[in-house]
């Protein structure tokens, strides 16, 4: 434990310590192991050691033989870190980096529409024509809306979700007479999964930025 005296030494204590330190450093300086500090430099108001004297002293030390290599290695590390930081800036400054582009999402929407039509065809072949007509009719409405949504990052997912809800509604209305609840749940589940997955991690779907 640090004693109270150490933590709050009196002025006399501090002056005594400084004097003793000075004596010991002078002894070390005579041994060639510490810099030959000018007298008075250790006083509390003048404790700053001149950089040049330290550098001169260091240059004379035997263990400095590896110093140039160390400095070059440090410069290389700095250059690498700068390059890495610049790369990070570039990515941060690129609005398409790390997010799904509109082009990629349009492809995804078309794939979703095909999935819907195929689902309808599998589960209820009699309604394939109606379903495909509805989906195909919805997509041209959906795409420009999504395009607008992509210009407004904050609302894009809400807009997309609304549009897909509208698509679901359109399908439900168009096929209301024979709509199977379970089948509807499956389709809705697929869409929800798609949305959740996109929202959670768009990049994971491997839609490269265009």
């Amino acid at each position: 434990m640090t004693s109270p005296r150490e933590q709050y030494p009196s002025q006399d204590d501090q002056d005594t310590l400084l004097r003793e330190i000075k004596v010991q450093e002078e002894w070390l300086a005579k041994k060639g192991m510490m810099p030959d500090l000018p007298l008075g430099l250790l006083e509390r108001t003048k404790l700053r050691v001149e950089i040049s004297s330290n550098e001169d002293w260091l240059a004379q030390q035997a263990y400095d033989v590896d110093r140039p290599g160390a400095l070059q290695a440090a410069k290389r590390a700095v250059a690498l870190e700068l390059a890495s930081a610049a790369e990070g800036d570039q990515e941060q400054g690129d609005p398409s980096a790390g997010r799904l582009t509109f082009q990629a999402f349009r492809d995804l929407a078309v794939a979703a529409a095909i999935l819907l039509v195929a689902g309808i065809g599998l589960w209820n072949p009699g309604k394939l024509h109606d379903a495909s007509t509805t989906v195909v009719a919805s997509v041209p409405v959906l795409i420009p809306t999504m395009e607008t949504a992509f210009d407004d990052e904050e609302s894009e997912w809400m807009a997309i979700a609304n549009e897909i809800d509208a698509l679901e509604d359109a399908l439900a209305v168009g096929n209301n007479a024979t709509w199977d609840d379970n089948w509807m749940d499956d389709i809705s589940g697929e869409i929800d999964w798609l949305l959740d997955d996109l929202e959670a991690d768009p990049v994971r779907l491997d839609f490269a930025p265009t």
Partner: protein
Amino acid sequence: MEQDQLATLIHQAQRRSSGALDALVDAYGARLYGYLYRLCGVHEEAEDLLQEVFVRVVRTLPDYEHDGKFDGWIFRIATNLVRDRVRRIRRRPSTSPLEADPSNSREDGGGQIDLADHHGLVPGAGVAQDEEMDALQIAIAKLPEAEREVVVLRHFSGLSFARIAELMDTPLGTALARAHRGLGKLREMMEEYE
């Protein structure tokens, strides 16, 4: 380096000027290397740590507000890196030359790095000087951590005791006392060696 010149250099480095950063390496690298080497006692370790210091400088310099205390700031980075390294070494069983002694507490200046068995120090030196520097390095390594930090930091950083106390988050009297004890022990060990 003049303060105005240093301020200009820092400003340029904050804008990621590679030339300015290289100039900072030139200005501080040697002293930092000596400081790191004296604390860890192994050239390779010191080199790695020196690179890490400047990587941290590149990362954190944009947030640094120059108040004329750059020396303290950069040596604090170096000190923290060494402390982290000592803590990592303490956590793992080791028989390496950098093996830390966990028996000493922090306030006792604990965690001294035992270099007594380490060879290969001071390559290229003359025999007499080589033996003397070996002894000095071993003596420094045997100092309790807190005392060693003050003694070595004072020597290599050129900081005042007031700034060292600030850097180490200790009262001025504590920094002075540690320097006093550390230098006293160093002298005692060297006299025994002779």
